[in-house]
């Protein structure tokens, strides 16, 4: 299949998901509330005099985004289960890869929105300067990595027992690596270190993204073909 067509179909799938979300706004509001609550848990779950905000900020940022992303990913294929919508999607004369790409784009926009909501809140609640351009790059790279794997896994877990529980169990071992690199980089960037000091971790994140996006596009048909 030609690549412009693949992308056009992918966008059609993504815009369908985003439209559904835009009409109801239930999921995004729930996850945004969840983000605020996790930040509160962080605030009350520690001794504020013992650990400084700056030391804790990378952990707060990444743990919050991880949990919020898992919640968001669970929902990606859940909406396709109602009225066997997935069968309809699979019957459409489009490449399976474009269905995956569409879901990936929708999830990235969804998780990206949560991060856009979360970042200023972290800056507000914990008084750290997070609106740095290099940090946006780190967040974007790490998010692509774990959302790529998460989208693939959620296509499988929705059709299992204990779907909500199984996705984090399968996904977290794949999330911890990009999370680790991103948290290290975030710590250095928040401490005012230059971008040149963290480019090794950024390269790792980029390679991870590339490998798992390609792998997921190749493997996705196996998760939906009967």
């Amino acid at each position, binding site marked *: 299949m030609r690549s412009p067509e693949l992308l056009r179909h992918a966008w059609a799938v993504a815009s369908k998901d985003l439209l559904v979300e835009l009409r109801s706004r239930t999921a995004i509001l729930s996850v945004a509330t969840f983000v605020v609550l996790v930040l509160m848990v962080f605030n009350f779950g520690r001794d504020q005099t013992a650990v400084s905000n700056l030391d804790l900020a990378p952990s707060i940022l990444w743990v919050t985004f991880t949990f919020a992303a898992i919640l968001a990913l669970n929902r990606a294929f859940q909406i396709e289960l109602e009225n066997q919508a997935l069968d309809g999607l699979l019957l459409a004369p489009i490449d399976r890869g474009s269905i995956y790409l569409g879901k990936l784009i929708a999830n990235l926009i969804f998780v990206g929105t949560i991060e856009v909501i979360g970042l200023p809140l972290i800056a507000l609640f914990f008084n750290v300067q997070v609106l740095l351009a290099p940090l946006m790059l780190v967040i974007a790279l790490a998010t692509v990595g774990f959302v790529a*794997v998460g989208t*693939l*896994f959620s296509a*499988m*877990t929705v*059709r*299992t*027992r*204990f779907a909500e529980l*199984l996705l984090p*169990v*399968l996904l*977290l*071992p*794949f999330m*911890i*690596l990009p999370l*680790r*690199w991103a948290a290290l980089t975030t710590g250095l960037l928040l401490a005012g270190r230059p971008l040149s000091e963290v480019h*090794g971790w950024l390269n*790792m994140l980029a390679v*991870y993204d590339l*490998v*798992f996006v390609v*792998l997921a596009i190749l*493997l996705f048909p*196996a*998760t939906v*073909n*009967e």
Partner: protein
Amino acid sequence: MTMLRVGRWITALALLLLAGVYVRALVYTPAEASQGLAQKIFYLHVPAAIWAETAMVFVGLASIFYLFTKDPRLDRFAASSAEVGAVFCAIVLTTGPIWGKPIWGTWWTWDARLTFTLFLFLLYVGYLLLRNAVTDPGARARFSAVLGICAMCEVPFIHLSVYMFPTLHPMPIVLQPGRPKLPGSMLTTWLFSLGVFTLLYVGFVVQRYAVSYLREQLEAMSERC
């Protein structure tokens, strides 16, 4: 049924030889100068670690071929290899702290290789949980193949990532450039143990393979009734 019996015999032989490894390691191999008796655990720890990691590669390879051929034997093999890999990982994660307490003074540290083994163990556990959570045999095989391939592809990343951290763990003694730097008697004991663990892996996998085949037969029969 013959397969199950063959698997049992291989396992029995391997367990008998494992007793031989203990005897050889404790009686006929000199104690290491600085670590003393604690070092003896290496004869179990290292072969188990090698097979824990190799089993994951087999899971991944069998998964790739399964997706191309849809041969249920490959799926059964991947599942068996994952089960045995999980057990070997558990052996590594148990023997490691037993050695670590007297030598490092702590049961656990977030050291590169410890973290790696824990990762590997969790990947195995996830794989086995996914298999349990899917009821349809076709979907189970496809889903676990997808996860198996992803897990195999993640292993190099974990390797790369953990080796970028400073480490307390002893560096490879046997698998290193040039000659292995250990006395001949220790090397012989170690190679003997590696052979025994290979046999154990084969024995366990053959048994698990036979059991899952029988289980499938049983499921098919109960569906027909």
